[in-house]
């Protein structure tokens, strides 16, 4: 085990070369920009779009055997700002494509161990008391490639782009369940989507009665189809897959259904061959998003170093930065708002001396848990535990200003 984990720290060539070239090309400005135009600009428009000069997109690998209907696309964390991810750049993970659902025909049925089974239309939910919450959503497979030292993931989008943060609006599940009258025998609920594979996950009733809600809006407008339009289950702080999209029913039960997604997938294989099951909450995690892998700094000097931190168990209490491979740590500044189970933006002013350095962030949440070095997790969970990696992500800068994945440095 020890010798294997050491492999991560061996150098692995310059996979970021293309990226760096692109960055240099972007910065080369041969001609001065034209003065502000005197001609009229564009007229008002019914639905906004970004400047044609902005090109950042979600990343997805198109050269795999995986059909794109069950693939994932990743948020460009290096090129998003503050704590809110634009809905158009929110990561995606589907299991059988994005269904097109007419909200006029869609209902959420709550049944099983309840006194009054009820079907709620979207309009019904919108009549009920609404809540808006800013929460991250992270796929439990986010940064899984780092367990074994990573593949071609030299930049933060590819390694960590399966987390995003939005303001979600909807109705408390507890309120809906109380309207239906939950029977004492109910301990779990099966949440099932209306997509082609009818994706299903079992959720403990305790979570549903705590802070779960049915979201019908995201960042001020109805959910995007990729995010579950017209409604999805939202479980603050819990692994993305359990936040079932295109939700069509919640069935109150006295046991988990043991669906495919909660047995053969999303379970964490340990070194002794057993697997952890129902690993729901996403543990405290942070990373530096800018500058990060793929960037090239033009030379020594002052740089703002920024990133995000989040915890599925509450609010972030502190973030620390190391510039010397973890020997010493200094506090970063947290930017408000600092919200529970939400991305939290941190900043740190870095005076780069032009020398090689291994730099990283680590966070501590309000429960006192401090984000561990990845080898500490590997020591306990082995190399086969694909999901729920919340280890420290290191970046390495070399004297030429190039930044690469420091987990392999």
């Amino acid at each position, binding site marked *: 085990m020890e010798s294997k984990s050491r492999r991560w720290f061996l150098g692995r060539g310059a996979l970021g070369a293309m990226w760096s070239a692109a960055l240099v090309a972007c910065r080369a400005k041969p001609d001065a920009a034209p003065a502000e135009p005197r001609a009229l600009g564009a007229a008002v428009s019914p639905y906004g779009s970004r400047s044609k000069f902005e090109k950042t997109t979600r990343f997805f690998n198109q050269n795999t055997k995986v059909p794109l209907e069950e693939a994932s696309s990743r948020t460009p964390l290096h090129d998003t700002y503050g704590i809110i991810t634009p809905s158009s750049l929110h990561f995606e993970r589907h299991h059988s494509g994005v269904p097109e659902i007419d909200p006029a025909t869609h209902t959420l049925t709550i049944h099983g161990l309840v006194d009054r089974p*009820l079907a709620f239309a979207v309009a019904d939910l919108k009549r009920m008391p609404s809540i808006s919450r800013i929460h991250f959503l992270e796929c439990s497979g986010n940064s899984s490639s780092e367990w074994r030292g990573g593949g071609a993931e030299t930049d933060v989008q590819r390694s960590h782009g399966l987390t995003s943060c939005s303001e979600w609006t909807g109705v408390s599940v507890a309120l809906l369940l*109380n309207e239906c009258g939950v029977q004492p025998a109910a301990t779990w609920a099966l949440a099932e989507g209306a997509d082609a594979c009818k994706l299903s996950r079992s959720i403990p009733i305790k979570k549903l009665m705590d802070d779960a809600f049915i979201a019908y809006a995201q960042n001020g407008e109805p959910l995007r189809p990729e995010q579950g339009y017209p409604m999805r289950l939202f479980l603050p702080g819990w692994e993305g897959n359990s936040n079932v999209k295109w939700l069509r029913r919640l069935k109150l039960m006295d046991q988990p259904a*043991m669906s*495919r997604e909660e047995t*053969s997938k999303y379970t964490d294989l340990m070194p002794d061959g057993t697997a952890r099951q129902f690993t729901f909450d996403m543990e405290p995690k942070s990373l530096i998003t800018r500058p990060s892998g793929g960037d090239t700094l033009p030379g020594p000097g002052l740089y703002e170093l920024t990133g995000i931190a989040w915890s599925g168990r509450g609010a972030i209490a502190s973030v620390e930065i190391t510039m010397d491979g973890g020997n010493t740590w200094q506090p970063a500044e947290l930017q408000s708002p600092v919200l529970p189970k939400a991305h939290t933006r941190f900043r740190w002013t870095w005076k780069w001396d032009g020398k090689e350095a291994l730099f990283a962030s680590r966070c501590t949440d309000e429960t006192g848990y401090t984000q561990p070095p990845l080898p500490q997790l590997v020591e306990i*969970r082995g190399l086969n535990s694909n999901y729920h990696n919340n280890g420290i992500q290191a970046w390495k800068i070399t004297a030429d200003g190039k930044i690469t994945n420091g987990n392999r440095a």
Partner: protein
Amino acid sequence: MAIALERLAILTLVLCSASLSGERSLVAQSPTYGVGRPPTAEELKAIDIEVTPDGKGLRPGSSTAAAGKEVYTRRCETCHGPTGTEGPQDVLAGGRGSLATSRPLKTVGSYWPYATTLWDYINRAMPFDHPGTMTTDEIYGVTAYVLYLNGIVKEQDVVSQTTLPRITMPNRDGFVVDPRPDIPILRKKKP
């Protein structure tokens, strides 16, 4: 006469709207907010599809691996290979004894704790591009064949709503409760 007819028409209108609103009040059942409606039996039947490890939810039917092989070849082989080991999509068979090695192979036979999950998943999600197009007996047949490929049932064993929940999968006891946090929590002293 004309007035009487008019009155009759009005009365009819009133009665109609009364019965409509009567129906409405029966329909809205959420006690506090008066929204939602009871799902019809047909609606529930269409969506109430999950199968639990005790076999609840299995539709009546049966088949064998011998019979299911033809269905598998027609509906499953393209993605999962002739013997469930070739891919290109999820490998279904083999991998027994590999979970604690450096190259674990998670398959139905090596990893899945319940046979009912296999039926449930094929019923709800397979084939990938045409879910919901196999008959109940075809689903039992494909389930039996995948179990057969893993050496869990014999070719002629009848797999049915009665026998399927009785099958003990090899990795039935392979799952443990999540113990996280699994590293020490060092609560920091406030400065």
